[in-house]
């Protein structure tokens, strides 16, 4: 018997999940379930379970859509945000949550990510960022650090990596944040904020892939990789209390950008209303 949370929000017939031992994806999927559970029971901001649609693309991360017990659609590689855009436009009431990976949303689907961010379409994008293509066996992704090894970078990665949270910010995302697998409570809170955010919201959640990325790059096992996160991703309050020198090589874990630009479907509703008023005058 799994826990009540798992029982309630996951399709237990399909569990245990297929991810490797120590894969961070299971933790992030639980974070999403906890965030939703807390929002459903939040008296102030209560959301309706039936209004949630989980959209995923292709890759290890994207298996999460099948495990979570909501309306779910597992789409084509890179296109989750584009499918989600149609769902949100068709029914703006829905909370459309995209579960994607670093390759899925910043390589093959990079174009859709930046344009959904630019439009400020009210999607919640949770990137399971494990720095590698895991499903196909460990090829370098747009977030694999320079010089790191991958099956397609046997001499070290020549590419320079994306920072997905910064990429979204640069593209105009009205909410962009960074979470990880170690800082569970902080990450759940970021996911909650992202779901409640009216416009486009992205949380770049650092996952860990001990099997294909960690082992190949001598980063140790899952435990070692979580320890790295503990030391190098610094929650907001502490991040701003330490000196510039101490921040060297560290990353902020928290909200990177936030503003209240008008949301796309709200803006489009105004167009429809203007047409209606014009027709009335005739």
């Amino acid at each position: 018997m799994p826990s009540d949370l798992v029982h309630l929000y996951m399709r237990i017939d399909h569990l245990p999940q297929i991810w490797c031992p120590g894969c961070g994806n299971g933790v992030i999927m639980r974070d999403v379930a906890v965030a939703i559970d807390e929002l459903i029971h939040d008296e102030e901001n209560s959301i309706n379970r039936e209004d949630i649609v989980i959209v995923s693309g292709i890759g290890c991360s994207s298996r999460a859509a099948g495990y979570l017990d909501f309306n779910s659609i597992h789409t084509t590689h890179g296109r989750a945000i584009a499918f989600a855009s149609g769902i949100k436009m068709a029914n703006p009431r829905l909370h459309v949550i995209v579960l994607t990976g670093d390759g899925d949303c910043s390589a093959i689907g990079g174009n859709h990510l930046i344009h959904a961010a630019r439009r400020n379409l009210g999607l919640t994008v949770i990137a399971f960022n494990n720095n590698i293509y895991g499903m196909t066996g460990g090829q370098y992704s747009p977030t694999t650090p320079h010089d790191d090894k991958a099956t397609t970078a046997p001499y070290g990665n020549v590419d320079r990596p994306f920072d997905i949270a910064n990429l979204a910010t640069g593209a105009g995302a009205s909410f962009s944040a960074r979470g990880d697998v170690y800082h569970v409570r902080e990450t759940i809170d970021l996911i909650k904020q992202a779901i409640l955010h009216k416009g486009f919201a992205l949380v770049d959640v650092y996952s860990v892939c001990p099997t294909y990325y960690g082992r190949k790059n001598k980063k140790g096992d899952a435990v070692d990789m979580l320890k790295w996160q503990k030391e190098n991703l610094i929650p907001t309050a502490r991040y701003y209390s330490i000196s510039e020198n101490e921040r060297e090589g560290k990353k902020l874990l928290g909200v990177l950008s936030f503003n209240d630009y008008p949301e796309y479907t709200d803006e489009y509703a105004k167009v429809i209303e203007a047409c209606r008023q014009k027709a009335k005058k005739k």
Partner: protein
Amino acid sequence: MSKAILMQGNEAAVEGAITAGMRFFAGYPITPSTEIAEQSALRLPQVGGKFIQMEDEISSIAAVLGASAAGLKAMTATSGPGFSLMQENLGYGVMAEIPCVIIDVQRAGPSTGLATSPSQGDYMQARWGTHGDHPVIALSPSSVLETYTLIIRAFNLAEKYRTPVIFLMDEIVGHMREGVELPDPGGLIINRRKMSFHDGANKQCYFVPEGEYVPAMKPFGQGERYNITGLAHDESGFPVNSNEIAGKLVGRLLDKVEKNADDICRVEEFAMDDADTAIVCFGGTARAAMDAVLAARAAGKKVGMFRPVTVWPFPEKALLARLPQLRQILMVEHNHGQMLLELQRVTRCARPIHFLGRVDGTVISPSDILGKLNEMEGTHHAE
């Protein structure tokens, strides 16, 4: 009484689609289909519908499939290069059984080709463009009025059979302006997908009762939590590794179109009753063919026109019914011989089949066809 109005083919496609209930359009500008996006942007908010210009054709069809999953009748429009980009998600729509209409206003290819010139070079791509064995329904109009009425049928078939329907226009029809009298919408049949799950389904969202082919489809957000995937799946909608279940699924997808071919297929026949020679053509090419038939008839030749309106599946029954009376067939199409292959397959070359095609971006004229008919009288060799 409705009044004749001057309308362009691309415009008629939008008006027909809106009459059919289309309330979502996602697209990306491309000649010669751009007017469809422009007209949709103008017209959809007037009827409470939604338009979005996406970042490319891949995302356009993805958004269309998403909107359809959320319950709206949805459409996109493009031309060859964009149609190529849409192929993967077209297959997704087939596999996940998501209704939508995809307009391809064909232009001369390959590649960027002759962007503003007519062609019918995407006929085979419409059938085989996406990977894997899959069914396809494709319709092709030959006039502005038919564009209006036929796109309504495209939506009806998409909804009825839960599959993307390709609306294969060409530059000739897309950019043609004609006076049309639109039919009274009250007299039109408008279909809608089956929205509530079957009683015996027990939450199996892809459950199909014995003897039927199409599962019901409830929009997201209406109280049934289910899963949609492009992976091979069972009736519950979840991925499976079972070869038996995967084979059964693809078999049903193919069957739902093949076994319903009589319902799906439509042809137009002109002067075929006593014809011993049939000009086979589709889409905009029919305009020249019809002129050629009239001229040939005036010269005493028993020539008729046989035009598949449903171009996929190929209306083989209707063609085979005409075969006994025919001495010869002339395939006229705006490509290097694509429907010709279907003709050869269906007739098993039981009659000489001649071919007139064109790949230089110019139109095929009635005199080209008449010239070919005269030439045929001098030879009986199949090409």
